């Protein structure tokens, strides 16, 4: 038998001499996989919670005697038009509505299709409230945490488009929750979004996607731009 055959990779001796490298390779891969599994958990226990502080504002006014029945928290619903055109007890045709011109209707439809619908007016903020010029209309804190200004803007912009369909029952609204990761480009565009956790209600999840797609964000500050583009921001939605 020639020497060449003795050194063949198929021979037992050759395989034995290659094992340290193989073991090292296996160990290296195992270490990398282990690190991939364990390290995120080590870092995961305290994610930076960029939560704009939201609290219920107390309206200006005199304190109400606790022994009296409460006033309504919002303006009373206006007596609907049906008060004047109440249905008779006979079969009625389709409910009467104001009749805008066909052109107005078309313009409205096109504006809606283009996402230009007028958002519902929100109550004007209390002019005497302490805060920041970049603060949230819903916020009540007088000062902001460091770095939260941009996330407050993100919060407000998404909230502006965040609509919960009324067909979701009040009972179900108590338990619905969904998480979406949004990746934000340098120009403020939402590059993509993906559900981390769906709510289980199609109409709620659909409404969240619509809100995210409609939202226009300001460009992120330079120190956040890269992480928002590459790793995104988690949006935790509750009704």
């Amino acid at each position: 038998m020639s020497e060449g055959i003795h050194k063949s990779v198929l021979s037992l001796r050759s395989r034995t001499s290659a094992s340290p490298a193989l073991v090292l390779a296996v160990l290296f891969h195992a270490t990398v996989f282990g690190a991939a599994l364990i390290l995120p958990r080590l870092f995961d226990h305290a994610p930076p919670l960029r939560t704009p502080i939201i609290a219920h504002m107390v309206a200006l006014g005199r304190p109400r005697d606790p022994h009296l029945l409460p006033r309504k928290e919002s303006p009373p619903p206006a007596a609907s038009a049906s008060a004047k055109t109440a249905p008779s007890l006979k079969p009625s045709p389709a409910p009467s509505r104001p009749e805008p011109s066909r052109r107005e209707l078309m313009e409205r439809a096109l504006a809606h299709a283009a996402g230009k619908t007028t958002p519902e007016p929100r109550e004007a903020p209390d002019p005497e409230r302490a805060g920041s010029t970049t603060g949230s209309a819903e916020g009540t804190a007088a000062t902001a945490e460091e770095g939260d200004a941009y996330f407050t803007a993100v919060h407000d912009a998404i909230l502006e488009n965040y609509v919960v369909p009324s067909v979701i029952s009040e009972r179900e609204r108590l338990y619905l929750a969904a998480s979406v990761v949004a990746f934000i480009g340098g120009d403020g565009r939402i590059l993509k979004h993906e559900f981390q956790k769906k709510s289980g209600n199609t109409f709620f999840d659909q409404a969240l996607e619509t809100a995210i797609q409609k939202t226009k964000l300001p460009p992120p500050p330079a120190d956040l731009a890269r992480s928002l583009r590459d790793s995104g921001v988690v949006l935790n939605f509750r009704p």
Partner: protein
Amino acid sequence: MILLLASLLLAADRPVIDLSGGRVQAYPLAIAKPLGAQEIGTAVEAVLAQDFERSGLFKLLDPASFLASPEEGFLEVDFSKWQAVGAQALVKASCDVSGAEVKCDMRLYDASRGQELLHGTYTAPRQAPRLAAHRFGDDVVRFYTREPGVFQTRIAWVRETENGKQIVTADWDAFGAQALTTASINLLPAWSHDGSALAFTSFRDGGGAHVYAVEVATRQIRPLVMTGDFATGASWSPDGGRLVYSGSANDNTDVFLARADGGGAKRITDSRGIDISASWNPDGKRIAFVSERAGTPQIYVMNADGSGVRRLTFQGNYNQEPAWSPKGDLIAFSGRDEHRVFDLYTITVDGGRVTRLTQNQGTNEKPAWAPNGRYLLFSSTRSGKRQLWLSQPDGSNQRQITNEDLGASDPAWGPLPGK
């Protein structure tokens, strides 16, 4: 491998934003012009539109804005045209007459995804195609909310007439009202658990108010409670096995519990003040009522055997007419505020948190819950004569339901069909 590791590390460092308090908005729904028999289709479309609009769940889109062809059938739906007018839900129907029946093929679509969600054939007597519309409407509500709809339910109220006050029943939208009584003063109707009868208070015997029952199908009236100086405000338990009412003897008014036929009555309250207006909770184990035992009328709750009495309202000095929600969590009542006007409120059974539903809109009284707990009927003078109004439990979406010449009061909402 390195990239995978890096992405996992980046994911762990993501900032988090919590969002809650989205605006609750009615779901935009389009009802396409029904195909087939035009007269029937028009009637079905009108009933569907009214049901959906009054439900407060949907925002009906104006048919004049529709871009899709009126002839568009079921198979080639151009969803982009429905999306363009803002529709998220789309209803299409095709109705035809077959002998003494109408047959409607009705479908619900998710307009934004272009999917069919519901599809069914609904039949009804030719004279009443609205029944098919109500049934499909209830199916749509159940599909979205996972709760039963109320479009097939019946309501009752007291109609003011020149000859007194009469008990009337009608569909949930007050259509087809029929009087069940013809003379005397009749008040406070309350449905039996299966909707076949109504208990009511009447002065028909001439000797003071007592409790009677009327069969809805035959209008046959029978006495239920004829004992004491008077008996009033009767209500059958949710399982139909018991009757609770207020009775007076020897100048003292208390709550009594009896068998469903009024027999075997037992007093379950015993205070010197007036105890009236008993209302069952959904499982029939507890009762809300009004008592003056603390000096002013207030809402109390107790076990159905009279034990465990607990005062529930502490705000205001005149709270009355409790109505326990079918969901069990709220009691609606009317209360008189410092302006000496009665308005509607709800109070949480456990926490005692009071929410006001009406304000500065006439006198609002006698709340009655829909059997699914989604709506309240009540009487209001805001449009002139006292009429019945519909509201959601938070006070939103209030709409006038009746238009009686001399007035309507004392609403009662019947059970869900099939109970």
